[in-house]
């Protein structure tokens, strides 16, 4: 955490509290991603609650965007399904408020691209996100070079700004990436888009330990992790394992919206079990 004090909002330090609990339990956490409002608002809310009830330790909720440049086919399609069904930023924040009525503990991280936030207005967005119960932000197209845009203001609202590190982030650049990162660091284990093939766990383990030499912040590993077996392998050394495309595929492949929610719950349960048994 940085030294900036929260000025408003109800972020109760959920992210750091959650990672402290995980450390105490000597296990990795499960971080799950779905796009907000996919395939529609009501089903999307059910899916979000299913994640919370099925063992997700941290929830990433995608803010749909028409042009998700860093995402593969699965998340692109989930964004467009949500937008077609009328999802927008207000509805996404409303989903967070609904979740918070049932779940006060699971950290919720909004993930997406800068433009919808910029268009809403950074201050308006941050004030409403903090009030809704958002704990962190991952904004793919805001590298540390643009920390003044959203990262620094977010921390003033008590919202963690979670930065991505990638295989192209070398030792020289890493301190800059870590500087204003709070909550956890998201290690993108492969170059490429979300949903791409996963690299070997051995390679990722080496890269994660290289980052640990620079920081004590928890490290979540994602990109290309789809199955409980893969999650278990990564959970042996990472502080958390991120699964996204495999969950959005559940929505795409479902015969009915309710079947999609069931599939998300089932996959989340099996992933949660895998990370709990990894060590």
């Amino acid at each position, binding site marked *: 955490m940085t030294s900036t004090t929260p000025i408003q909002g109800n972020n109760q330090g959920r992210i750091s509290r959650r990672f402290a609990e995980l450390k105490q339990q000597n296990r990795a956490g499960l971080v799950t991603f779905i796009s907000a409002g996919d395939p529609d608002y009501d089903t999307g809310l059910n899916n979000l609650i299913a994640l919370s009830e099925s063992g997700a330790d941290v929830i990433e909720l995608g803010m749909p*965007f*028409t*042009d*998700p*440049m*860093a995402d*593969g*086919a699965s998340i*692109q399609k989930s964004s*467009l399904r949500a*937008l077609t069904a009328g999802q*927008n*930023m207000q509805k996404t924040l409303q989903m967070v408020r609904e979740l918070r009525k049932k779940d006060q503990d699971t950290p919720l991280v909004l993930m997406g*691209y*800068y*433009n*919808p*936030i*910029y*268009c*809403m207005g950074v201050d308006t967005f941050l004030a409403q996100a903090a009030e809704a119960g958002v704990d962190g932000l991952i904004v*793919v*197209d*805001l*590298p540390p*070079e*643009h920390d003044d845009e959203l990262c620094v203001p977010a921390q003033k609202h008590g919202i963690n700004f979670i*930065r*991505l*590190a*990638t*295989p*192209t*982030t*070398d030792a020289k*650049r890493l301190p800059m*990436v870590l500087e204003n990162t709070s909550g956890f660091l998201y290690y*993108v284990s492969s*170059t*490429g*888009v979300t949903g*791409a093939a996963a690299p070997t766990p051995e390679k990722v383990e080496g890269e994660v330990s290289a980052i640990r030499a620079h920081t004590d912040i928890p490290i979540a590993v994602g990109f290309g992790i789809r199955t409980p077996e893969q999650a278990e392998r990564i959970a042996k050394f990472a502080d958390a394992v991120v699964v996204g495309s495999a969950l959005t595929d559940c929505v795409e492949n479902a015969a009915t919206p309710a079947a999609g929610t069931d599939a998300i719950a089932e996959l989340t349960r099996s992933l949660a079990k895998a990370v709990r048994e990894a060590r």
Partner: protein
Amino acid sequence: MTTQTTNSSMPEIGPDARGFFGRFGGRFVAETLMPLILDLQKEYEKAKNDPEFYAELEALQKDYVGRASPLYFAERLTEELGGAKIFLKREDLMHTGAHKINNCLGQILLAKRMGKKRIIAETGAGMHGVATATVAARFGLECVVYMGSTDIDRQQPNVHRMKLLGAKVIPVTSGTGTLKDAMNDALRDWVTNVDSTFYIIGTVAGPHPYPEMVRDFQSIIGREVREQIMEKEGRLPDSLVACIGGGSNAMGLFHPFIKDESVRLIGVEAAGYGIDTGKHAASLKGGTPGVLHGNRTFLLQSEDGQIQDAHSISAGLDYPGIGPEHAWLHEVGRGEYVSATDDEALEAFQMTCRLEGIIPALESSHAIAYAIKLAPTLPKDHLMVINLSGRGDKDMATVTAHLADQLED
């Protein structure tokens, strides 16, 4: 070159160290790409100060591209309109038929210096794709071009040209299958193939240093105009007119004149069916500031920050954004940004064919269309230069379909 009055109240020409022109520009990209973009910037800074780089570029511009492109006095167009004296900058006569090659040559020389083996590009009308495929063939590098499936249908001749030149053309079906989606997929390719690949962006947009770099490579257009008009008329032009999609031909023409206060810089956006119909590609006139494809600029978007589809009869202008330096010139009032509709462009296209024996690209026809409105209101000693950024052979199918009735007469 004569000394000219410079506008001392003009803010400093960008970009600054972070890639901003005023509040526009920047480097809004994923972390995976940041190290690549910083490398590219370093390499470009080195190349800029290397006489050998420019010697090689100039030799190719002369013997391979055919530069300098003529500055042609359009006598009959001038006579017909009865006002300003009109000159056409003949980029249509350059190798591959448009100004796009100027930028591609510069970038591929950089790619070579950086030891990259694979070239990727996005294309709308296909002119940038053809120019990229051309330079990739010339330098023996693998080439992959992303093109929206909608554009592939309406620009078949250019698809064949790219394939003949050895490029692989990948149809983009994600999103709406147009230029913006082609750019998304090119960025996704780049983020995946970071070590081997050089991304040749075709316009003055994208993350820093692309807007600066593409501008610099295209500025040869304006530098030549400056010399040519001094030779022909003994003074600077009074106005420069160019069409704008992303804005590379316009920026290339405008840039060497930005500090010459007396020269009007007129950018013509594509108004499609009309700006009030919502079916257009005029990002400055009909858009709002936002962040897309690595830069902050004016975008066609909803109130919720979702990008909207552009529409123009010309595939090359069919982009929902505009280069950040244009956004800045617009904001500080140095550039005048106007628009021309599909119908006006078609009329200008025909007029240029019949009066000058030149078939202009539909993109360039937008610039001519505005000049047709403006020139009659100006005195006969007003010197106007229109950038004829490309030739219209590629547009035959589109034009024939729209003008079917008239052409039968």
